[in-house]
């Protein structure tokens, strides 16, 4: 019985992923911005992500703009980022903020 529950749990995780709405993190090459400075900032954020964050993990498939700031503070401690790095990553991960 317990084993069955565990298997259901595992299948649920995979199914949730397969059926979930994938909203990819904006990529500087596809994201349209109103100003070139915003594009530059997003590109800088993407580069920072590749150099620092991607040492350990990939970008999230989807991330709520409300969650980005706290996540970046968390990562600022882990990856020794500067305040301006945090802002550039914010532009990359949540361009609407």
């Amino acid at each position, binding site marked *: 019985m317990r084993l069955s529950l565990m298997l259901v749990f595992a299948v649920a995780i995979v199914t949730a992923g397969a059926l979930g709405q994938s909203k990819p993190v904006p990529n500087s090459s596809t994201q349209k911005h109103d100003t070139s400075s915003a594009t530059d900032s997003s590109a800088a954020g993407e580069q920072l992500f590749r150099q620092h964050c991607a*040492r350990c993990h990939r970008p999230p498939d989807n991330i709520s703009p409300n969650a980005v700031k706290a*996540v970046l503070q968390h990562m600022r401690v882990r990856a020794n980022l500067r305040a301006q790095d945090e802002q550039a990553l914010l532009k990359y991960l949540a361009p609407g903020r």
Partner: protein
Amino acid sequence: MIRARARLIRALWLSAGLVCAFPAFGQASRPVISGGAGFIATNDGGNSSFQPVIAPVAAIPLGDKFLVEARGDVREFIFETPSGHDHQFFGSLEYLQLDYIANRNLTITVGRFLTPFGIYNERITPIWIRNLQDAPIIFPIGTRTTGSSDGAMVRGVIAGNDAVQWNYAAYFSASSNVQQFVSGRAAGFRTGLFFPRQGFEAGVSYQRFLQDQHVNATGFHVAWQPPTIPIEVRSEFAHSPSGQGYWIEGTSRVPDSQASLIRRFQPVARFQQFFRDHFVPADFLPGRDTSRFDAGFNYYLPSNVRVNASYGRVFSGPNDRNVWNVAATYRILFPISGRSQ
């Protein structure tokens, strides 16, 4: 065990209460629940086990300079017995820390934090990050007793620019036998150089364990993600009176979220060895020289779900055996207060 589970549940409720008590600090920086969940099936030398795991991380910004972070790990270990299956509950609080981020050069941390020794403990342990579900053999060196320390830590960048960064972390930990806060009395540091443009980093770690017999643990780590070749290589070496060993892991680069279905496949391989010097009680290391090779893959599904599987062969005299792992992991990430924008 029931009492331990009740204590842990109380602690989680307390944490949730603390999180909900702080929304006023963060209209701009809202608390988040992150971390991972998963299910791991293992066959180790013919013995099967199953582990549903939830390892939530809470990050609660208190303005721009202060951050409260916590991570728990709750899992049920279900294993085979001659009469069927039995199970055991494990719950631990891996860190609960307050950070003061003065600037890039200095962050002061107090509370319970992950012991900064090498790169594996702080960076690769999350279930949704690790490429192979089994930790390296030498993982206990420099991280005992639990991988966590209770005390204070300073960390940051000593000097650096866009081309190179000289970073450090130094800490002191008190001894604690309090359940969920178990730690050893120890002091240590890690320092390293990171070259962002080359994707290369290397560093050394040292720990002086200050309770019972005072012993030293030393380590060296290196990681490389060449910008022009889509591979990653990581390695650690560690030495203690118990013995010494190393691991080296290679993989293709972590695919980004827009990768094609084929490029979401990530092969992984790791080789490691441990050489026993002296018998030290409760060091969580193999009792004899041991080598192990693992090979497997990760496959990244949409919406932060990953499936991974691996085969490992352990060479340890009469304990030679095969180890199979199959896992599904999910990366949790959502805000826990505030209105949508």
